[in-house]
């Protein structure tokens, strides 16, 4: 459904994308993960034809976006990170407007709007001005506006940032429903658990390149099947982290805690405790975590996702 080949983009002397390539099958739920500045948004912006690339080719539904932009846009639904709605208009009027831009007739659109508003739990508030909605409700309408033309492909750029649990769960339900119906979804998020929960395949992007991609299991293998050990306590400093690395530990500081990665964490735990004691770190709590995307990401890029 989507192919991205050797995509490059620079802003002045800064390289944003350095030859990214990946492909997404029809009906696949693909997650694009990366820290801020990794090149995620640039990739999405190029794929959604908002900015041109310096070189490389992107095809959507078999069409080259450089040659058939309008045709590609018609099969594409994009949910931008920012809520882009007209506050003075009602939800229905907003949806009528955004839907009409995709050439959906008014009669068809009205039926789809009712259907979508019901799906997102906003039918009762359909005639209220959007400016009176909560942040979560606005975000739901923001997503709804990208679905009215029944796109084959949906790009979602961090759609659950800063919203209440009720809205988040509703969005998850809708995403799962769309995925089940066969829609191809490209999803960027900072939340590892969301990527783990929904994505069929994940691409990890860092410094403008794809450092790894595959299913969660494939990524775990690429990441060395590492488990993580989270140590909280007093006396944790960057200097002590460096000393622990000199002792041979794969360790970073995360939220003022030490995060150790190891393929045999249970066996390594006594060494970790001894090393911490030697460095004067007073351990208050230790938590062993199974291999997850966070530890895979850390292992592959050497940094946390939210760095």
């Amino acid at each position, binding site marked *: 459904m989507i192919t991205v080949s050797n995509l490059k983009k620079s802003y002045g002397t800064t390289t944003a994308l350095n030859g990214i390539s990946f492909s997404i099958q029809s009906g696949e739920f693909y997650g694009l993960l990366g820290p801020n500045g990794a090149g995620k948004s640039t990739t999405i912006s190029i794929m959604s034809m908002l*900015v041109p690339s310096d070189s490389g080719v992107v095809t959507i539904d078999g069409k080259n976006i450089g040659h058939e932009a309008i045709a590609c846009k018609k099969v594409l639904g*994009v949910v931008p990170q920012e*809520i*882009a709605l007209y506050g003075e208009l009602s939800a229905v009027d907003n949806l009528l407007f955004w839907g009409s*831009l*995709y050439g959906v007739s008014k009669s068809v659109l009205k039926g789809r709007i009712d259907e979508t508003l019901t799906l997102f739990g906003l039918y009762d508030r359909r005639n209220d001005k959007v400016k009176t909605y909560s942040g979560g409700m606005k975000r739901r309408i923001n997503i709804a506006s990208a679905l009215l033309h029944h796109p084959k492909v949906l790009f979602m750029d961090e759609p659950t940032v800063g919203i209440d649990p009720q809205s988040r769960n509703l969005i998850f339900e809708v995403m799962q429903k769309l995925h089940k119906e066969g829609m191809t979804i490209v999803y960027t998020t900072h939340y590892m658990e969301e990527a783990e929960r929904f994505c069929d395949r994940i691409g990890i992007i860092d410094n403008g390149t794809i450092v790894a991609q595959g299913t969660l299991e494939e990524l775990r293998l690429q990441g060395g099947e590492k488990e993580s050990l989270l140590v909280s306590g007093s006396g944790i400093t960057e200097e002590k982290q460096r000393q622990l690395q000199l002792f041979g530990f794969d360790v970073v500081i995360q939220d003022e805690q030490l995060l150790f990665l190891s393929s045999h964490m249970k066996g390594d735990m006594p060494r970790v405790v001894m090393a911490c004691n030697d460095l004067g770190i007073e351990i208050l709590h230790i938590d062993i975590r199974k291999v997850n995307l966070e530890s895979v990401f850390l292992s592959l890029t050497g940094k946390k996702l939210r760095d």
Partner: protein
Amino acid sequence: MFEIARKDLQLFFADKRGMLLTFAVPIALITLFAFAFGGAGQSDGPSPTKLVIVDLDQTRESKALITTLDSLDEFQVQTTSLDSAEEMVMKGNRAAVLFLAKGLEDSILHNGQPSFELKYDAGEGPQVAILGGALYGRLNEILAVRKSEIRSSESLVPPDSATSAILAMVAENNSKNGVAIKETPLVREKENAAGLVHAVAGTAIMMLLFSVTAMGTAMLDEKQEGTLKKLLLSPIKPSSVLFGKMISVNIISIMQLVVMFVYGWIVFGLDIMHHIPSLIIMIISTAFACSAFGVFLVSFAKSKAQVSGMSTLIILTMSAIGGSMIPSFVMPAFMQKLSVFSVNYWGIQGFYDVFWRDLAFSDPTFITRIAVLVGIGTVLNLISVGLFKRNVLSLI
């Protein structure tokens, strides 16, 4: 207390737009009004009044009179034919025309009372009154001297001091008798008083410029709020976003002008019903030019703050020189020349053509005004398309 004052001053001086409105706008307006009313920039005294003369007498005396009038600092004489002169007044190119009647030479040579006719546009009352007063005084002086000269030459005796004194008395006597200037309005006072037309048209255009700029800044709001980005994600061409905005601004501008003229009709009795076709054309072309100006200002700027600062200054300046605030005929000649560079001037003159001068729909003067307004709109729209791509669409 002093800390609060210091903080407020810091904030004030950090706000470039506020500074612009506080200092630059008043300075610009003071400068304009000083030029318009205060005589600033006129080191050699007031500029001469353009005086159009039709010489129906075509004699040595009438030609000599024209030469003498032209030699005076206060007049810049232009002679023309009867038809052309009347057209000048009726189309608003001149406020009045002086006719030298047949028999002028006879009356000068035979000590009769020379008669003149001043044909004028009643809508230009103040200007005509000033011109009429000046003409009356000057013609009396010139003709009194001329009659004295004629008498003196007829006596064949070189005037001694006593004779000179007598001639001066005769001249004074003639001057008291005065010349007769018949005043004939070519464009008569009517239901649509010129002042009313000016008040409605001038104000409507100035306020329209402010409102189209405000409407145009909605585009920058869209950029700021992310809806412009979302529009660009949809399968429409980027230029369609701008054209859509232009259409909506034009429609609202037309509605605004219609409401203002209907208000002028209901409340002040502005007779719009007898000029509907011309009025519609004028409203559409004025709205087109003003809308293009608003969109141009917005395309020119990169932020809303830039638009707000610039627009206030530019619109007030254009309205002042274009005649929205004060009629352009009371301004000095160079200000009148400048006024043609403002949308206001062409709009106001066009509405004068419709309501006051009753120019036909097909009249070249009226068509010229429409063409200029449409031309301004077209050029500004074309420039806006280029600027819009560079300034507004630069999202990332």
